[in-house]
């Protein structure tokens, strides 16, 4: 589990899957934004134009959903909110001001990461369900027109909320130095683990 100055945070298969989710997300966000608002229409070029975006977006969506759900199931128990998470969240001002010494000890994920997890899980479920309904090629004919309209609205809202969540997620990885290695080489430094996730560090240090 731990070697030298580094500790393992994500196994190779978890990292591979994470980047599959990430790449499919970028393709979906680009093509989805093109459908969402005319200002973003030029992003339809990412998938080769409007027609191929319309064709590929739902297929790529299924891949992202499957990939994310595997990750979400693996990380479910690590993301249940605990009492110290609520305390941590109450001190969000200290978190943002980098006054980390005042924060309560947290496990593998802090409350911010856990909330991002739940936001991603809920928006992905909403996107998949509504996405099926508005997938004209195979499914739309099975649904009533009011269901279709509601699904289109839900899909747009959930998609935008997911994009906002991912912006926060990516920013957190840039802001908190030493984090990105967890998803590239799979490890973080002992100091990073002990500083940001002391309860998790204790649990792996014993092993």
């Amino acid at each position, binding site marked *: 589990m731990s070697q030298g100055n580094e500790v393992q945070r994500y196994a190779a298969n978890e990292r591979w899957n994470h980047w599959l989710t990430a790449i499919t997300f970028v393709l979906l966000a680009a093509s989805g934004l093109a459908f969402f608002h005319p200002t973003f229409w030029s992003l339809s070029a990412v998938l080769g134009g409007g027609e191929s975006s319309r*064709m590929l977006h739902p297929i790529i969506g299924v891949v992202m959903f499957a990939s994310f759900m595997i990750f979400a199931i693996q990380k479910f128990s690590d993301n249940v909110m605990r009492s110290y998470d609520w305390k941590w969240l109450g001190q969000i001002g200290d978190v943002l001001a980098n006054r980390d010494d005042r924060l309560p000890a947290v496990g593998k994920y802090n409350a911010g990461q856990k909330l991002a997890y739940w936001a991603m899980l809920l928006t992905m479920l909403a996107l998949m369900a509504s996405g099926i309904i508005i997938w004209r090629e195979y499914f739309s004919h099975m649904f009533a027109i009011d269901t279709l309209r509601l699904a289109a609205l839900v899909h747009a809202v959930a998609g935008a909320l997911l994009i906002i969540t991912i912006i926060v997620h990516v920013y957190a990885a840039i802001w908190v130095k030493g984090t990105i290695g967890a998803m590239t080489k799979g490890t973080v430094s002992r100091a990073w683990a002990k500083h940001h996730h002391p309860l998790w560090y204790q649990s792996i240090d014993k092993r």
Partner: protein
Amino acid sequence: MATATTMNIVNRSATTAEMPIKSNPDIAVAKLIDESKCIGCKACQVACMQWNDNRDEIGSMVGVYDNPADLTTKSWTVMRFNEVERADGGLDWLIRKDGCMHCEDPGCLKACPAPGAIVKYENGIVDFVKDNCIGCGYCVAGCPFNIPRISKTDHKAYKCTLCSDRVAVGEGAACAKSCPTKAIRFGKKKDLVAWADQRVKDLKERGYQNAALYNPQGVGGTHVMYVLRHGDKPEAYNGLPSDPQISPTVGLWKGMTKSVLSWGMAAAVAVGIAHYFIKGPKTVDEKEV
């Protein structure tokens, strides 16, 4: 008969640039369908097929005169036959020529995400531009009349064009030209509204107390209008909505949602960048262990 009208575009799907939006009342065209004069001969369906070079697949008899049973990508107009029992025990045979209503405020255009795939001309005609259509089907969700159909072969949306290609050169709609009883008339909208008022008056004198012009204001009026003998219950005509409007769900989807959440995404990026410059990165002293 209408004279040649300008085909200036006044509204265009998925376009943020300011446009006039409304048609020009001086040149706006319309089709008036006088249900009281319709004999259900389907000459209009044939003329539509012929002019637009559409050859639908041969369907099958479904037990009523409606043939084909529904609008398709190749049948842009369909006669709807309705047998309605009257309060006095008699039977009304109500026939309505169904097809695109060419709304002044088109729900299809509002819902469409592809720039220029749906346009509205200065003369009021709402047209699908095949080259720009991506086949997503959002127009289906936007339409209050259940009109657009998406092709299973070329994945494009189709509906009545109000013969925009004929109108551009001063001809009327093919269906109007073929109608043997002149139940379908094509011309300037203001002339046809005046003519319809006379027809309604005439029908009322003949005992149809509820005769009315169908030009629903919930969608800003339409460029295809009906004279209905039973104008108080348009639903009797195969579910013609009495007060059609763009669904509030579609309004929310294409209104507030679009702008508020676009700004929300931009704000998330801006706040992140600002935070990084104000508070700086979160670092760990590697000697902490």
